[in-house]
């Protein structure tokens, strides 16, 4: 199987190199035959990388410990669904996984554009295959997942297989870890497609709004996956790390947030180019920045240049990544400078108070957030280089720097969409802002008099109320207009309104999801924590909750031994059920972990951790957190996900426009053929 995997990798590498040459030559010579050949090389790249992935999964599933990677990251008693996750549990496997996802995106880009974007596609394939060459090359030459274990004996070097493997890192043995990394990788990798289209547009000088229109959905897909991945990562941290929170501003967390932020900026600024033909240079810069940050994030996670609680796949591949980042930046920025004359703005700004300026401010805030988070993340490296002193930049820093920026962004989330294109009159501002502001003031006053004095939490809830009303008001106004003019039922009017312009109203749903996320974030300020020692029959009081220890039992499974605490939970004398936090000792890796038990409600989570055994009293150490509003983080994330799906559905207007464009392209092709 190792040979099969290696053959798949090296053949894929050859096809990727061929794809670069054929794409570039085919594009230059405008030879359909060569271009089709380049496209087929991208499909062959996908098939061969898939072969390598299947070979590695087969080895993992069959416990083939001749393979060094399988022996290092799996074991016989690992449940099957976690065995799938072994593919991305270590450096070599996760790089192969990265390459496989890239090949899927590349194949999809080729297949979905067989009749569209014909001038761009040769160069799109060349760029995709250049990235594929780097990743397939690094997987084959530097971090090969198909190396065999061997021992040196008197008879020479012999193949060797241990009786059992080292097992999967216990922290990764959690259900969301089976889905979290693929989501995150789908996000990171997917931004290669908009990047490839942007570079192809620069090379071919086709810098109208065609590449922008084409790449919008190709940007939304990875943006959505990255968002889901970040959120699942938060859910994993919340359920596994046992400190009661979901976001710790760890470098790896930050690395995933950076391209999401710049991708968000691109998804907004792209609208100005489509509507007004402005910000053309800026949009290219944002696409380059986003892809750069994706690779930079991967580099940061794997090179070990910064310490992280999430870094499970570190090695010395840093220099290779640094070279690739350098080439990527040099190539894309040079190309941008060479094409500046084709990227002139078609319009001027009519007013300071307009949708266009709203988007500019939105981009300013998002990029400020990117800079602040990036600066904080790499500052320890800079400090070491400049003053030879190791410093830590952790949550206290990011909370002080990033929260105000986040709140400004929240404000614009509500205010921006209420501004009209070109110019917004004072009357319009008054009409649109009065109700949201009034509701926000009432909510703010209620919160203040209820005792909410934490400034950021108060501000977050105040702005959330403002933005929520801004968004709901837009739905209401649109539906009312349809009701009055078309006589539709209100709910039917909402549905038709949304489907008529899915992009706009999908965007509003995303904004509503962001509001819910901020409501959840605000709750973090009111966390309550208590620690206690318990044995059977003991009680622990936290806020209004009473936790009574019903039993402490121990047990054994093939994969781990465990100690489990059963807690009867009641609140104000009313029984709420039981919680069973446990502590597991994984046999293969010889590592312990805690598995928290959570009672989740919309108002607050009761979060319990069995943190070990007190050596003096032999009692169980129990940590309990009451986390207000956390559920809204997950609900908000789900709403953002739904909104993104909605925004990707072609609206009625878009479908009609697409039909017209296709007819035009076919007519042009027919004309060219004659």
């Amino acid at each position, binding site marked *: 199987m190792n040979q099969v995997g290696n053959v798949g990798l090296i053949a894929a590498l050859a096809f990727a190199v061929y794809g670069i040459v054929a794409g570039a030559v085919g594009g230059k010579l405008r030879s359909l035959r060569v271009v089709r050949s380049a496209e087929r090389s991208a499909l062959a790249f996908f098939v061969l990388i898939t072969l390598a992935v299947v070979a590695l999964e087969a080895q993992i599933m069959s416990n083939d410990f001749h393979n060094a990677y399988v022996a290092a990251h799996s074991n016989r008693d690992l449940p099957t669904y976690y065995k799938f996750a072994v593919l991305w549990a270590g450096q070599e496997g996760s790089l192969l996984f990265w390459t496989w996802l890239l090949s899927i995106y590349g194949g999809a880009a080729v297949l979905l554009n067989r009749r569209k974007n014909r001038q761009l596609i040769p160069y799109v394939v060349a760029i995709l295959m250049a990235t594929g060459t780097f990743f397939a090359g690094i997987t084959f030459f530097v971090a090969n997942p198909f190396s065999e274990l061997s021992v040196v004996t008197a008879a020479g070097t012999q193949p060797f297989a241990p009786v059992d493997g080292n097992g999967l890192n216990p922290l990764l043995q959690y259900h969301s870890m089976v889905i979290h990394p693929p989501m995150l990788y789908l996000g990171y990798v997917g931004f290669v497609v908009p990047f490839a289209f942007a570079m192809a547009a620069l090379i071919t000088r086709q810098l109208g709004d065609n590449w922008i229109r084409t790449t919008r959905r190709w940007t939304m897909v990875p943006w959505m996956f990255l968002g889901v991945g970040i959120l699942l990562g938060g859910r994993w941290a919340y359920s596994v790390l046992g400190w009661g929170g979901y976001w710790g501003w760890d470098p790896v967390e930050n690395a995933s947030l950076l391209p999401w932020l710049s991708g968000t900026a691109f998804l907004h600024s792209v609208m100005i180019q489509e509507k007004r033909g402005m910000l053309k240079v800026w949009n290219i810069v944002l696409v380059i920045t986003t892809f750069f940050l994706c690779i930079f994030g991967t580099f940061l996670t794997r090179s070990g240049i910064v310490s*992280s609680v999430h870094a499970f796949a570190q090695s010395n591949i840093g220099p290779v990544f640094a070279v690739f980042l350098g080439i990527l930046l040099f190539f894309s920025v040079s190309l941008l400078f060479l094409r500046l004359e084709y990227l002139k703005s078609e319009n*001027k700004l009519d007013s*300071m108070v307009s949708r266009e300026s709203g988007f500019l401010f939105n981009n300013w805030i998002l990029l400020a957030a990117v800079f602040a988070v990036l600066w904080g993340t790499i500052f320890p490296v800079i400090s070491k280089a400049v003053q030879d002193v190791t*410093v830590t930049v952790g949550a206290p*820093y990011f909370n002080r720097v990033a929260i105000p920026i986040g709140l400004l962004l929240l404000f614009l989330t509500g205010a921006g969409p209420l501004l009209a294109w070109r110019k917004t009159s004072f009357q319009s501002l008054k009409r649109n802002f009065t109700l949201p502001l009034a509701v926000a003031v009432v909510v703010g006053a209620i919160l203040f008099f209820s005792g909410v004095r934490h400034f950021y939490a108060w501000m977050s809830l105040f702005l959330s109320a403002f933005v929520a009303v801004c968004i709901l008001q837009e739905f209401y106004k649109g539906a009312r207009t349809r009701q009055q003019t078309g006589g539709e039922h209100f709910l039917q009017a909402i549905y038709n309104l949304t489907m008529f312009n899915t992009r706009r109203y999908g965007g509003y749903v995303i904004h509503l999801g962001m509001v819910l996320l901020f409501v959840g974030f605000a709750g973090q300020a009111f966390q309550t924590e208590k620690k206690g020692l318990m044995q059977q029959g003991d009680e622990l009081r936290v806020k209004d909750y009473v936790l009574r220890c019903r039993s402490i039992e121990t047990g054994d499974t093939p994969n781990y031994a465990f100690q489990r605490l059963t807690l009867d939970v009641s609140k104000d004398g009313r029984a709420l059920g039981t919680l069973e936090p446990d502590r597991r000792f994984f046999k293969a890796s010889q590592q312990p972990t805690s598995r928290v038990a959570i009672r989740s409600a919309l108002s607050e989570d009761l979060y319990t951790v069995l943190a*070990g055994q007190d050596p003096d009293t032999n009692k169980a150490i129990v940590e309990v957190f009451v986390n207000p509003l956390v559920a809204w983080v997950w609900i908000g994330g789900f709403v953002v996900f739904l909104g993104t799906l909605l925004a990707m559905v072609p609206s009625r207007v878009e479908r009609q426009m697409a039909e017209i464009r296709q007819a035009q392209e076919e007519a042009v092709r027919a004309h060219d053929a004659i």
Partner: protein
Amino acid sequence: MRFRSTTTLLFAVLLTATATRADDARPTVESISERVMCICGCVATLNHCPHPESECSMRAEMTKLIKTQIAGGKTEEAILQDFVERYGVKVLAAPPGKGFNLAAWVLPGLGLILGLACVMVIVRRWRQPSAVTASATPRPDPKVLAAVEEEMKRSGLGIRD
């Protein structure tokens, strides 16, 4: 104008809030645990160390030290200073705001302000009617336009709105 004033006010309030920090006179284990890193190698603040105290000797030792110092009547800053002397400056979860480390704190704010200045300059420039651009961009000949439209109609390509 009012919109601009409201935005400026909001911005000022947020910046002021960033610059000030509630300074609790009485330190607690929690308030200090979130400002120092656990040095067991977990790369987390002391209150977020994923290892329980019973298994993490450093977490237990550091927590005990905090309790002792609080009992001794030390202020939060004095306790943090003591930690720096024992474990080095990397024990602090955020770099101290002096010397080169000041750059960590100042640059994000500076970036925000410079970014705003750039946006304002761009907006002002884009709002100015540019005589050069207006004269340099040739207006299409109406006769040519009419001929193109006629040709597009005949070839069935339609006219883009």
